[in-house]
């Protein structure tokens, strides 16, 4: 699951998924809900509606995964030893998980 090939594939999958999700987020935010409705109550009501929450949750996971897999790939360019390479993978995946948890906590505050 966490071998080089699968992580490389997941970076591609998340790139493909992120594009429509970003577009959906922008369309919902700008044209459906409007940029003026940014108060706590407005955002809370929007997220409780379900559609925005679904998009944001998927976007959170896809963007974080893509970003940290990209970071891992860049750092691997400088890893000369396989032990360091393994550590880079573990650290970036932990950072990914931590960022997703942080993002979830931010979303939960509105629900």
């Amino acid at each position, binding site marked *: 699951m966490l071998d*080089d090939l699968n992580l490389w594939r997941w970076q591609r999958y998340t790139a493909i998924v992120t594009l429509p999700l970003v577009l959906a987020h922008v369309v919902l935010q700008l044209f459906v809900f409007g940029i003026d409705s940014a108060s706590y109550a407005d955002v809370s009501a929007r997220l409780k509606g379900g559609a925005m929450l679904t998009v944001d949750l998927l976007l959170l996971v896809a963007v974080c995964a893509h970003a940290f897999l990209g970071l891992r790939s860049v750092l*691997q360019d400088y890893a000369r030893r396989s032990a360091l*390479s393994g550590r880079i993978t573990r650290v970036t995946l932990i950072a990914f998980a931590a960022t997703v948890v942080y993002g979830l906590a931010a979303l939960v505050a509105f629900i």
Partner: protein
Amino acid sequence: MTESLATRITLEVDRSEPGKPSRFEVPVPAPTSRVLDALLYVREHLDPSLGFRYSCRAGMCGSCAVVVNGREALACQTSIGDLGTSTVRVSPLRALPVLRDVMCDLAPFFDTLKRAGAAIRPREPDRKTLRTMPPAEPHRAFIEGQNGCLTCGACFSACEWSATREGYLGPAAMNRVLMLSLDERDALGMSRLADVARDSGALRCHTLGNCSVVCPVGIPLREGMQKLKGLLATMDVA
């Protein structure tokens, strides 16, 4: 070369032995004179100790690959007139140990071909000759352009990873893996992809394309890497 027709160039050659002369004034009888002609002139008339390798002089063997003015090329196929400079610098291939002057030990490069299992394993070992793949066969059309490697090592020298990461297979070896994995006559077929589906294999390639730029026979190696990555993204790699 005859002196009477000559215009002259300054030939700068990387020397492996300190103290050996590295700049030579060399006559160039015609713009189509090759860098190899200039190297041969130096060895015959100015410094018989100059080390370089050549064989066929026709761009077929790949043994005279060197770096000319910062770019990998076959010395026998590089016209001095096309370089457009009066000073021509010849250096050894990068990422390979230098044996003498601009002559390299190609063993690390050939080792990548060995590690990649670059020889065909016939599906029908009892046949005396391989079945001919018809030109219209889809797999042949897919890999046709990747054919014709001279194993000169120019792509290996130009690849940023070959020079900096020990164990990286390099463009020529992975191009060979691509060809064999799609060759129906090969018994290993797609299982060959497993060996390059790792960070030290095809996944590390950033597709900068230096390999394609310097290949003396114009093999689209960068495009080959993209094809290989396409297979890795979609195929079940054992």
